[in-house]
């Protein structure tokens, strides 16, 4: 990354003038914090005692036998809250507290990031407001209840597609109004600098731990790492530690919705590998085409853009991104539940499906998958998809 927050020409900070200076200050505060021993002590203490880190790596025996490859899962679903999101919200929450902010705002799709923000708001005594698209409020109801119970205000966003992208817009507008006392706790590695590098820093604990754990368990590095990519935070958190390991291939699973050719998906990297990108929500990155309908079965993945560093990793060839359809993800969701007794969230189900695809292609012997969230929040959708409600005869 260049010092101005660009990655091979992607990224940067393209925001209205009122946000330029506050974001520059945030960047300075972040740079100072990550040099400070005291910050790391506090952060790591909370990750361990509040969050439950380290999360284990698990060898999936049944799947491994079935697909003739060693498949390992980074059990990030075991983190407090049920997804990787807490790593980032703790880090940014501490920064906000240090900067004297009184209020946190966040966008959320699946509600996992909103929940993780609400938890940290409660923990650090910061007033919390979460923007969530109306469509997502309906399909991720359980997380809405959790956020409210944690004391956060959930504001329904009704414009446009009523999803994650619109929630980001609403949060940015709130920030412009209230930047004096408010920190926008961005939930993924997206948006203007310094958010992508901040989120990566706080999520990189995933890959650091996993890299050691798998060497201990397996005796060697994996041949491939796989993670799902919404905005790209759990994936960059896993990839970062393996970036210099040339023999480890990196794969991102994008939400292919009803298929790339259907025009209904949220897979900008797969759709626009050769385009030069555009400025979207504060940074230069890849975005789905105007006439593509933003869609995924997973509320945490249906975002039209992607973190700028992923655009760069694709362009330089360091990582490969493939679109996984709703149907493939749902099949993997069911398969993992039955074969390993782990119900994953719909988001990492995309990564599991891609890992299975790679195993079937027989190119990699050892595959490490980031199981970045648990499936409780998706039970209602799953019940509908798989007809799980018992019918009275």
């Amino acid at each position: 990354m260049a010092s101005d927050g660009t990655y091979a020409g992607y990224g940067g900070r393209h925001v209205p003038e009122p946000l330029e200076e506050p974001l520059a200050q945030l960047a300075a505060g972040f740079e100072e914090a990550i040099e400070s021993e005291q910050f790391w002590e506090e952060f790591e203490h909370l990750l361990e005692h509040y969050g439950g880190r380290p999360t284990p790596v698990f060898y999936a025996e049944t799947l491994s036998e079935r697909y003739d490859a060693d498949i390992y899962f980074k059990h990030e679903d075991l983190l407090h809250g049920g997804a990787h999101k807490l790593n980032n919200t703790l880090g940014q929450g501490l920064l906000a507290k240090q900067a004297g902010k009184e209020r946190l705002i966040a966008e959320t799709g699946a509600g996992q990031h909103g929940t993780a923000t609400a938890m940290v708001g409660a923990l650090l005594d910061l007033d919390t407001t979460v923007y969530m698209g109306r469509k997502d409020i309906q399909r991720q109801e359980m997380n809405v209840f959790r956020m409210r119970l944690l004391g956060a205000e959930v504001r329904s966003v009704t414009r446009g597609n009523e999803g994650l992208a619109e929630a980001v817009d609403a949060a940015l507008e709130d920030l412009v109004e209230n930047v004096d006392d408010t920190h926008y706790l961005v939930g993924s590695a997206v948006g203007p600098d310094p958010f992508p590098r901040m989120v990566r820093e706080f999520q990189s604990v995933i890959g650091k731990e996993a890299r050691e754990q798998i060497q201990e368990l397996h005796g060697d590095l994996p041949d491939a790492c796989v993670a799902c990519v919404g905005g790209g935070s759990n994936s960059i958190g896993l990839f970062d530690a393996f970036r210099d390991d040339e023999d480890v291939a990196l794969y991102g699973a994008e939400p292919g919705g009803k298929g790339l050719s259907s025009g209904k998906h949220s897979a900008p990297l797969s759709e626009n590998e050769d385009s030069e990108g555009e400025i979207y929500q504060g940074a230069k990155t890849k975005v789905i085409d105007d006439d593509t309908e933003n869609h995924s079965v997973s509320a945490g993945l249906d975002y039209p853009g992607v973190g700028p560093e992923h655009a760069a990793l694709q362009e330089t060839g360091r990582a490969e991104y493939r679109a996984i359809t709703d149907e493939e993800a749902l099949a993997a969701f069911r398969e993992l539940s039955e074969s390993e007794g782990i119900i994953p969230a719909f988001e990492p189900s995309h990564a599991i499906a891609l890992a299975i695809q790679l195993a079937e292609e027989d190119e990699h012997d050892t595959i490490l998958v980031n199981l970045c969230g648990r499936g409780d929040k998706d039970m209602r959708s799953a019940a509908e998809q798989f007809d799980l409600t018992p019918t009275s005869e």
Partner: protein
Amino acid sequence: MSLEAAFADEPAFVPYLAAGDPSYEASIEYVEALARGGADAIELGLPFSEPIAEGTTIQEAIVRALDAGMTPDRYLEFVREVDVDVPLVCMTYYNLIYQYGESDGPRSFVEAAAEAGIEGFVVPDLPAEEAGPLRAACDEFGLDLVFIVAPTTEGDRLETMKEQVSGYVYVQARLGTTGARDEVSDYTERSLARIADWDVPKAVGFGIKTGDHAERIVRAGADGIIVGSALVDIVAEGYENGDSTEVVADRLEAKARELKEGALAGAPVEQ
């Protein structure tokens, strides 16, 4: 007429509308009505599907214009067709300027805009540090580049803007996305003080709703006023009520007159 000249004789009134809101034809009439009402320059928004952190008023205007088929090429046609004799400033997002045409960077769009009759640009999401290519293209085609100074703008960036600005500087009088306010912010004077030594006219915007606001802002030292949401509200209301283009144009002209007269009333009396 050059942009700076629009501020030369008296306090300038600079209205904003989104081109093509709610239709191409009606919007032409509306822009012409503003000129009749006393506009000294007009900020003509080129709608972009992903405006960042715009208030809902302007965002809805952009959606109406896009739904009615506005595109960069239609916009240039609009600029050629609209019959006003005051300078037009293109207000849009960097993405559109950057993606247009064959050239790498902003040059193609700046050239096309200059040919169509645009006199300058305001680009809210263009970081001053990255303005070089756009500044160069504007110089090449004789256009001005206006910068927005916010209450949070400080230090090096203020200097970078000062070096590159031309036409006028857009002083955002208070924090917040564009939305008409009931009160004139006390940020005005402080904001103006920070750029007192800039040698371009200073136009204050964001939140001006009435002739009275205009008067107070000019009295606080502004060389001109920029008004967006209060005018877009009139377009929106007319659209929702199904009022005729003529009726809405008359309301805009009357509002423009009120704002211009307010600005004039705030001007220091010549001795």
